[in-house]
């Protein structure tokens, strides 16, 4: 019987993998991932209005222009956007106004001294200015005004400089476990996204795969031939294992595509400017310095168990649901609540970042079918200990074994049932057998 199980797993896996559609779908996924990782490069390659520089023309006296230019340039450098602007000094406002047209992005900033308000300004452009540029100009004008106010108050240059400098607080944590974890929130969010998003996608794929396969065998009555040769338990196991292996394989392929996409990005970037490759190195060093990598490696066995058994549990539930239905349409309707549970888990894992210490979210991290999305997130956010993650994995393993035991009873009854009359009664009856 072991040989038959092995053959059924292989046959089911071959049916999914050895098709031109699998190859085509993976080619498309690879292209999309490369595209997503390099989306900024693609957007820049095709260009657009965002690509052209905005000319800032300041009409004022020379002293005001010099001060404004210093402030504007430093603000745009802080916001890593200095390349998008040119700034120039002009005397004649009317002449500059006449030059405005729809081909060039030019913004005239007319700045005058005022007795009432220190400074008055008018911003003139041919078309709408984007919000980002607008905010940058207003921020620079306000800072210029503050400096002038400070100057008139009798403060010396050093005092004015000190006042103008933004506060840059340093964050110190006294928790010894967290002393090296500053500036790692963005990285944590990124790691969570990398873990959760593909898993969500893979589970969706898994449910469809197992459902359609069982439905096909059932509706063509080939199920009768198969089940007359192998026990339902072997058949059920083969379907679950093959589907889980398929999504694990697909998951590994997605990781490979992502790595390839990063390599492609590095090659493209090296050919232009060598900035992004440094950023990737920075990300890795932050991962190491923050201790996140070490934590993830320690928790990896639990995370793998949690994911693997969650895949198995979803496959079991879907297999049972598929055995109860007689068409793929019925199965799709019946699996909808399961999909809602999946979306619920995904949503909770996403909002867990904003609800630190939430008791409710922590409880859900132990609930099977949700835990694989929430528990790793909570662990990465330091809201769950390694021990708790282990407990969550253990609950998942026990849950999977229980639903296999009882699910198999329903499966045995369901796969040879072609009528929906008294379906629930039959299934509850089979649970008691």
């Amino acid at each position, binding site marked *: 019987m072991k040989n038959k199980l092995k053959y059924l797993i292989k046959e089911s896996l071959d049916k999914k993998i050895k098709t031109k559609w699998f190859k085509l779908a993976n080619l498309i996924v690879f292209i999309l991932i490369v595209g997503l990782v390099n989306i900024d490069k693609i957007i820049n390659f095709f260009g657009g209005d965002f690509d052209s520089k905005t000319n800032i023309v300041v009409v004022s006296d020379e002293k005001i222009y010099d001060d404004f230019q210093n402030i504007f340039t430093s603000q745009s450098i802080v916001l890593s956007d200095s390349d998008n602007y040119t700034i120039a000094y002009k005397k004649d406002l009317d002449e500059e106004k006449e030059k405005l047209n729809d081909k060039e992005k030019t913004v005239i900033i007319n700045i005058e001294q005022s007795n009432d308000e220190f400074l008055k300004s008018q911003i003139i452009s041919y078309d709408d200015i984007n919000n980002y540029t607008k905010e940058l100009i207003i921020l620079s004008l306000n800072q210029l005004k503050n400096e002038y106010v400070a100057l008139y108050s009798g403060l010396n240059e050093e005092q004015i400089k000190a006042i103008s400098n933004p506060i840059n607080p340093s964050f110190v944590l006294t928790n010894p476990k967290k002393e090296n974890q500053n500036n790692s929130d963005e990285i944590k969010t990124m790691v969570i996204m990398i873990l959760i998003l593909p898993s969500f996608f893979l589970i969706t794929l898994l449910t469809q795969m197992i459902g359609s396969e069982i439905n096909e065998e059932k509706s063509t009555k*080939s199920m*009768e031939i198969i089940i007359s040769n192998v026990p339902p338990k072997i058949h059920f196991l083969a379907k679950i294992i093959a589907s889980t292996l398929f999504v694990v394989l697909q998951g590994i392929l997605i990781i490979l595509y992502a790595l390839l996409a990063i390599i492609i990005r590095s090659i493209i970037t090296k050919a232009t400017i060598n900035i992004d490759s440094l950023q990737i190195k920075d990300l890795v060093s932050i991962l190491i310095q923050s201790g996140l990598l070490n934590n993830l490696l320690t928790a990896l066995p639990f995370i793998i168990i949690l994911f693997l058994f969650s895949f198995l549990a979803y496959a079991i539930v879907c297999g049972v649901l598929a055995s109860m239905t007689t068409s793929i349409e019925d199965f799709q309707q019946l699996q909808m609540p399961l999909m809602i549970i999946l979306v619920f888990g995904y949503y909770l894992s996403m909002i867990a970042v904003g609800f630190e210490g939430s008791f409710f979210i922590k409880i859900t991290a132990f609930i099977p079918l949700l835990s694989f999305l929430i528990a790793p997130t909570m662990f990465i956010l330091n809201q769950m200990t390694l021990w708790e993650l282990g407990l969550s994995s253990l609950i998942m393993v026990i849950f999977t074994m229980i639903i296999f035991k009882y699910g198999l009873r329903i499966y045995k009854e369901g796969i040879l049932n072609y009528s929906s009359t008294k379906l629930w009664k039959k299934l509850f009856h089979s649970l008691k057998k």
Partner: protein
Amino acid sequence: MLKVENISKAYNTVLAVDNLSFEVNDGEIFGLLGINGAGKTTTFRMIIGLLDMDSGKITLDGQKIDYNITDKIGFLTEERSLLTKLTIKQQAMLYGKLKSMNEKDILQKLDYWLERFSISEYKNRKIKELSKGNQQKVQFIVSIIHEPKLLILDEPFTGLDPINVKLFMEVIEELKQKGCSIIFSSHQLEHVELFCEKLVILVKGKTVLKGNLKEIKHDYQKKNILVKGKIKEKEIENLPGVLSIKKVNDEYLIKIKEEKYIKDVFKVVKQSDDITKFLVEDASLNEIFLDKVGEAYEK
């Protein structure tokens, strides 16, 4: 030898099979007949172990049927039990492997049967691309590819033209000669008449007729008389024991209640001087079936 002893199966309060017993010897073809819903499919499912029976016993060569001996059984279902997205080769490989065959044997046997059924060129075609008749051939091939000891054929001639029906019959006869026990179910009773040595007729799960086909036909009281020539229709119709008389083409078909009324009919027929045919026949299986099933329903 397949031995079915007093098996019963009920779905809730409905008795699908009631105390059914029969035996199929090696190299024997057995007919399991009945109208739709008579309990045939339930019986087949119990034989191959898909359904648990409520009571009774089924053995093949003295062994209880379980997953250790299902490799010896071939089953052709009434509906097409083929995975239509697979090619013929993939389908044969799947069912062959499930019968514990090795790949080499499967391919060898497949080539032989495809050649025999003249569909070799479709070996790598998807089943859904084949005609109904060719799909039925594939279904038949995959049910016999492992040379079963017991073969269950549920409506095997569905979708076949007369030439292919003849080909199927030849193959079934060959399997019989090799010692395979065959259970056969068909609504086309002329096929059953040609094939089966023994049969059971089921009505609502109950056995209404059982035994050797020749004996059944012989023991059946009603007879048919075929007469060719001018006869006194009215006079014959009024004779005691005559059930009906009707003209079929250029012959008269006279149905009588019992064998003893033949001489009375003959007396009237011989009064005519142009009689070229007077033939007494047993009733056809179709008539016996309709009679027995009708009686059972009336009860």
